[in-house]
């Protein structure tokens, strides 16, 4: 099946113009999509720019409510990718943008007050929501689009009990270390290619009397999550993807040998008073520093490196140039060997709660390459999608860091793994792992920490 994505080359350039034009000419009824369902796609719609939308049918007067934790300014970028769908199918997409999505969606599931679609940022929460029995499996058109556009691991993440529910939306990469290219050039530091080189570089900087690292894990009730990312990165690097999966699925205990060693390896950085916490205080100050503030000492020359996901690009002041030759940029957190390319990342999934054509059509649309290209084209925080057919050329307006992310995601050698704490049961992934990691930073031993997390794992 083709899904009407014939004119890939010219489409997005046209789209922006077409959208403006369409606003005036009201295409709703004229798109003629109702006779033109998933199988078709060959007969072009009379309205320019709407050819790729014919397959979704005429959805005039229909409304799809979308609930998400994505908030300003990214909400606007998201709405921009919805606009062509609304214009061409006549449907209305009503977004509800709420920071406390992750806590509220379960409450709403219990209260029976669910949206049509929830944009779920964690596989663990996704599983919990599907387990409520209120989620609706994806329809065939969405499944076909996902098979065509995404690596199988992404489909697995959106599935439960052999049924596919939620297509992926945007993705991000967490295995980054932020640094100052200017400092590295002037001091003659080179970007480390292995974990040993990273350690050697840290020692080298520490020997000059400067604290090489800065870190912060404070984040309201989610305080502690950045430590979970550190631990996952090291687990994935030291023991490989298989062992990582076993750890996340609890095939090996949280307090078994490998995870304990991985946390200790992280401790060699985060709990090393020679390494932290440049410009922010002692080791304990990691717990009280918000993750947003944690990287900023790099710009003041108070520390040299900060391990944080790609989204951190938004936290730098406007005056700082984020580029490979600028004030600040990120390098890929290396593996044990230079040829290893483990990638830790995250993503969002579109979970449906209402069995209606417009809801399925919208899910299929977000799974399409049309949507992925639009999202890349919009720039900002919505650039990176795991859609392997997305056109890298459309990412021209994206930041350098997003382009780096896209190239890492499309690298065939990359071994991508989802943020493990997100995939763990919520009693661990959004509670004890955060809490105990915070206690670990403020002095709790590694053994007590992994023992307590293991004890909290639901039996």
């Amino acid at each position, binding site marked *: 099946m083709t899904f009407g994505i014939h004119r890939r080359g010219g489409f997005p350039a046209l789209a922006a113009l077409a959208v403006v034009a369409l606003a005036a000419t009201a295409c709703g009824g004229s798109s003629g999509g109702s006779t033109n369902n998933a199988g078709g796609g060959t007969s072009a719609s009379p309205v320019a720019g709407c050819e790729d939308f014919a397959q979704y049918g005429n959805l005039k007067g229909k409304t799809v409510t979308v609930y998400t934790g994505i908030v300003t300014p990214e909400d606007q970028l998201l709405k921009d990718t919805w606009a062509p769908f609304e214009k061409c199918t006549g449907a209305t997409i009503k977004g509800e943008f709420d920071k406390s999505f992750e806590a509220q969606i*379960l409450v709403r599931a219990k209260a029976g007050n669910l949206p049509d679609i929830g944009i779920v940022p964690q596989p663990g929460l996704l599983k919990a929501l599907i387990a409520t029995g209120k989620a609706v499996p994806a329809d065939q058109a969405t499944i076909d689009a996902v098979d065509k556009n995404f690596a199988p691991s992404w489909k697995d993440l959106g599935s439960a009990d052999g049924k596919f529910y939620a297509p992926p939306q945007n993705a991000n990469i967490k295995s980054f270390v932020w640094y100052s290219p200017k400092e590295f050039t002037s001091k003659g530091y080179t970007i480390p290619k292995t974990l040993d080189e990273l350690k050697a570089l840290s020692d080298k900087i520490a020997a000059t009397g400067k604290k090489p690292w800065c870190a912060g894990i404070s984040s309201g*009730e989610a*305080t502690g999550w950045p430590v979970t990312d550190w631990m996952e990165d090291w687990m994935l690097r030291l023991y490989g993807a298989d062992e990582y999966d076993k750890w996340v699925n609890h095939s090996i205990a949280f307090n078994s040998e490998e995870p304990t060693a991985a946390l200790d390896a992280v401790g060699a950085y985060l709990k090393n008073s020679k390494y932290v916490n440049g*410009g*922010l*205080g002692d080791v304990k100050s990691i717990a009280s520093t918000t993750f947003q503030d944690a990287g900023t000492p790099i710009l003041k020359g108070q520390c040299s490196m900060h391990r944080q996901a790609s989204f951190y690009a938004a936290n730098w002041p406007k005056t700082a140039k984020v580029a490979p030759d600028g004030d600040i940029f990120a390098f890929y957190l290396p593996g044990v060997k230079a040829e290893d390319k483990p990638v830790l990342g995250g993503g969002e999934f579109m979970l449906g709660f209402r069995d209606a054509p417009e809801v399925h059509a919208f899910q299929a649309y977000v799974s399409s390459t049309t949507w992925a290209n639009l999202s890349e084209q919009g720039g900002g925080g919505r650039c990176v999608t795991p859609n392997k057919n997305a056109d890298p050329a459309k990412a021209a307006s994206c930041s350098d860091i997003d382009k780096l992310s896209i190239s890492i995601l499309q690298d065939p050698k990359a071994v991508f793994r989802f943020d493990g704490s997100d995939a763990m*049961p919520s*009693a661990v992934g959004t*509670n004890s792992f955060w809490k105990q990691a915070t*206690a670990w930073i403020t002095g709790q031993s590694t053994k007590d920490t992994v023992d307590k997390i293991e004890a909290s794992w639901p039996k």
Partner: protein
Amino acid sequence: MTTTHKFLTMFEAIGLFVAVVGVILTLASRFSGRKGDRIVAAAFLLPTVALISVGLLYPGLKTIYQSFYNAAGNAYVGFDNYSTIFSDPDQRTVLRNTVMWVLITPFVATAIGLLYAILVDKARVEALAKALIFLPMAISFVGASIIWKFVYDFRPDQPGIKQTGLLNEIIVKLGGSPHQFLIDSPLNNIFLILVMIWIQAGFAMTVLSASIKAIPEDIVEAARLDGVRAWAMFRYVTVPSIRPALIVVLTTIGIGTLKVFDIVRTMTGGNFDTSVVANEFYSQSFRAGNQGLGAALAVLLFVLVVPIVAYNVRQLRSSEGR
């Protein structure tokens, strides 16, 4: 649902309410005499009882029921959740913190309120002085928490770094080194409790001040003629006269303190050993997905509040009886 639709629903609901009340009134008016009075009383009570059953009794019983079930709410576990609360080291820290909150907040806030009320009583700037301490009452708990988070803010003692927190700035100016107020347990609990006292002292002051002003002038004068000094006046005249008000203030702040949630959640998120029962109930129910333990914590909170409420009611009765 469109806005018009929502309004229509609202008017429907109001119409329904009026109709139901109308029916009840009409029916009630048909009865008279002694037996009739009872029927009238029952007719008026019925809607209230029904609503309390649906809105309070049923959820309450359901919570108690859930507290005997496991995390997913599908298997009976007996008193396991309760034994977790009293045996798990982290949960015991939660209990310890709650005890700290309840023992310190009501007494300190009431004491400060009382002292302040006496000090400013009949002073020249009484209105202004009272307004100043009452002001924090007008600020929401979350707002107050954010304000105090800035007061406690920490920056390291390193060259080129300025303190942003008020308290640490004062400490540094006096030659000390900055302190992590919110991290070092168990003292960090005291710094959280301080926020609650800051809010509640104004409430205590207002109620107690009004009650001090209500002390009959002749009692005070008689005491003065007997040569009573300030302390004795306070101990034997003021405090006994305002005893009912004192108890109301203490118990009200006590109940509020037991339920404290906003301050802890905003300032530390329950980290650094600062969680309290209400915060833990929320985290367990809605973040950890442990319905059973969450429900058990809610029940525990209820059990802890009951004696205070009961005492309050008894006091109210005995003061009415006088």
